[in-house]
């Protein structure tokens, strides 16, 4: 037993002959090797930048910035997985994000107060704006989905049309001008020191997460027993539980090591009468920023949708074999339509982050999002031939892209260089994956 536990902890030393037994051990933990490999790649990228930046890159503050920058792309990428898995594409996401972001700005600066009579003090204006934005996203998604699924126009064409025309509509909304001045409560969606959970809540979330991981492991083991499915060996279960919990708690500790900037803390302390600053200044942990909570929430819901709900299983069934799915009695058209509605809703969430971060909207919000989102999904292992792709992979893919972008600008590489690097990584990631799959089969 002890042997078995120790073996995976020294993967670097295995001689080639022992490879098979190690592979067997890893297989017993049922870890998704692809995902694990990507985590390693992400870690390598981060460490690389840490080294290049002279050891300042892996500070909590930087990692928080990086993840907030990744949030919008990560959220939309989870939906793109379903769209690509069902053998479609959505090129209109960037324009839709722009349209909805501009809608938020217009709603809060003009339409809500001047047309609907909801002044700045109207309760839950941010939520009303968000709800309308989600409605707009779902409506655009339903429209595009309808044309794709029921009229039968290829999704590439429909969403390419969407990319052009929706971006044009953004201009008409704003006459091209930047609009700023959102509600302070809406701005919290975008993160920042005040738009974060704070120390205590972050720990609470981590503990709940930890309990959930253990509960999931236990219940899944029980379920498998009940239906006489093979179960993971006990050591693997324990290992997964411990590693999972450690990761969640470590993440919380890391996020809590990021403190409010001194100047901001002092300013708010005066505004809110906290009294004199304690010895050594205010040390207020920011904890996990709201956009990251949104990513985590969306990731969980989408994973549940994709793996546990009939809708999600239909999407994968259709993607794996459209004819079989159709003959099997699945309402494939409605399923496709729904993937685009989900996409629209996710765009509305991503738009809320972008608009909140900017405290407004510009004509160019969301430009090129579609490319980054598709790249994130594909780097995350989603296959264009349909039927294959995971939500968690896409989120990781978004983080890989964002790490590169942020890391390169952190070490002072100018933007053309960033684009070159992003393009190369995209091709390399997919190339490596294709190579691996071919070797595996």
């Amino acid at each position, binding site marked *: 037993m002890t042997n078995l536990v120790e073996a995976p902890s020294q993967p670097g030393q295995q001689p080639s002959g022992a490879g098979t037994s190690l592979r067997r051990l890893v297989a017993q933990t049922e870890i998704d090797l692809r995902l694990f490999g990507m985590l390693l790649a992400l870690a390598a990228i981060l460490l690389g930048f840490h080294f290049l*930046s002279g050891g*300042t*890159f892996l*500070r909590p*503050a*930087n990692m928080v*910035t990086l993840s*907030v*920058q990744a949030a919008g792309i990560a959220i939309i990428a989870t939906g793109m997985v379903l769209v690509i898995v069902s053998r479609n594409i959505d090129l209109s996401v960037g324009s839709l994000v722009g349209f909805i972001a501009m*809608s938020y700005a217009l709603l809060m*600066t003009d339409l809500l107060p001047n047309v609907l009579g909801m002044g700045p003090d109207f309760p839950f204006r941010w939520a009303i704006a968000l*709800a*309308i934005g*989600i*409605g*707009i996203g779902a*409506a655009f998604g339903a429209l595009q989905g309808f044309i794709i699924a029921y009229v039968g126009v290829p999704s590439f064409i429909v969403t390419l049309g969407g990319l052009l025309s929706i971006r*044009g*509509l953004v*201009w*008409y*909304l*704003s*006459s*091209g*001008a*930047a*609009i*700023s*001045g959102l509600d302070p409560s809406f701005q919290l969606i*975008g*993160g*920042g*020191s*005040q738009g974060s959970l704070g120390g205590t809540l972050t720990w609470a979330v981590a503990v709940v997460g930890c309990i959930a991981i253990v509960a999931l492991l236990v219940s899944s083991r029980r379920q498998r027993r009940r239906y006489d499915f093979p179960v993971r060996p006990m050591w693997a279960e324990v290992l997964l539980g411990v590693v999972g919990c450690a990761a969640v708690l470590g993440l919380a500790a890391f996020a809590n090591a990021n403190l*409010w*900037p001194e*100047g*901001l803390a002092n300013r708010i302390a005066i505004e809110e009468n906290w009294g004199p600053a304690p010895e050594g200044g205010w040390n207020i942990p920011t904890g996990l920023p709201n956009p990251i909570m949104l990513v985590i929430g969306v990731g969980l819901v989408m994973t549940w949708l994709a793996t546990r709900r009939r809708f999600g299983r239909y999407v994968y069934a259709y993607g794996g074999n459209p004819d079989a799915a159709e003959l099997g009695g699945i309402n494939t058209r409605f399923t496709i339509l729904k993937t685009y509605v989900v996409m629209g809703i996710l765009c509305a969430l991503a738009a809320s982050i*972008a608009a909140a*971060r*900017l*405290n*407004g909207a*510009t*004509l*160019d*919000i*969301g*430009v090129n999002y579609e490319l980054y989102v598709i790249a994130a999904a594909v780097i995350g292992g989603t296959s264009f031939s349909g039927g294959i792709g995971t939500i968690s992979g896409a989120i990781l893919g978004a983080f890989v892209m964002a790490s590169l*972008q*942020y890391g390169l*600008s*952190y070490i*002072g*590489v*100018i*933007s*053309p260089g960033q*684009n070159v690097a992003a393009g190369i990584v995209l091709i390399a990631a997919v190339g490596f994956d294709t190579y691996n799959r071919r070797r595996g089969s």
Partner: protein
Amino acid sequence: MNIRRVAAMASMTAILVAACGGGAATQAPASEAPASQAAVDCVVGVSWNNFQQPRWAAADQPNIKDTVEAGGGTYIDADANLSNEQQLTDIDSLINQGANVLILLAQDTKAVLPGVQKAKDAGIPVISYDRLIEDPAALYITFDNVAVGEAEARAVLDKVPSGNYVLIKGDPGDPNASTFLPMGWDNAGLADKIASGDIKILGPAEGTYTDGWKTETAQKNMEAIIDQANAAGETIDAILAENDSTALGVVAALTAKGYDFPPLSGQDGDPANLNNVALGKQYVDVWKNANELGKAAGQFALDLCAGTAMNELTLPDGFIDPTVAPVAGPKVQDFTTPDGNVVTSLILQPTPITAENLDVVINAGWWATKDDICKGVTASDPGATACGL
């Protein structure tokens, strides 16, 4: 249910707005200008490269149109929607519609040349409006972009003579971003102060470029630079941003990071940025009063119609605001282009706007209204006086 309905209403409104806005902006009198009548009157044809930036439709277009029509001429125009090819087609159709003078806002300084050649062949004078066209026959009317950069840097350098600077530049493919504006910065003394060690640049030494002048990109880059400065224990004392869209991204990054607002530059006079000036989040916004640029172009177009030689063009005294008039007076002068062509030009002076002189832009009838500029300004903000608080 309700959400659905509201959403439907919102998109319907958008479509309505689309229908109304689009029709009014372009090509209104195009069909009613028969060629025979054009020979008598002066028909001024304007080819815009885009209406996506709001200033063209909001400031330049109405001023050219009003000036031309007040002088008895006819105004026609077309929008090329950022396409070089479309612009060439537009120029053809403006010539076919009987234009006697062409005003071109070029999408590209060189790609537009075949169109210019056609106009020359037809004996039609060409005015290159705001953006240079590399052809000695075209009259160049613009704001002095080097002077814009100079005004940006001078304002910020006066405020912060030494310390840590961040340079946020625009699109790497735009000569304004890579050449003219930085040249102005250096004219104001930036290069000397860097050489003498008074000023240290944080981030890349040549500045950080922003693809497509995108606000989101500037925001992300600035966040990385702030993180890096924090990690290195450095304070950012001032930021030179080349224009307003990038300055907006800088302000968003500073806000997200809970940073104070060090003096920050920009140009264009966009409403959101002038608002930031009033709120103390942006120190200076170098304003190119495009109302005056439009008036000057409209008047010169009429003069060229009437047969005035290009190198003798002069605006009547007081026709344009004296603060924007060229130092040598409101008449044309020779200008040597980057490609070495000598063109006749009228180069107007930009106006740096800070919280102290915000009233200048408020009173000028600029498309950023007082409501835009003073939104959310309280008595303790720098713009309080200008906003009448």
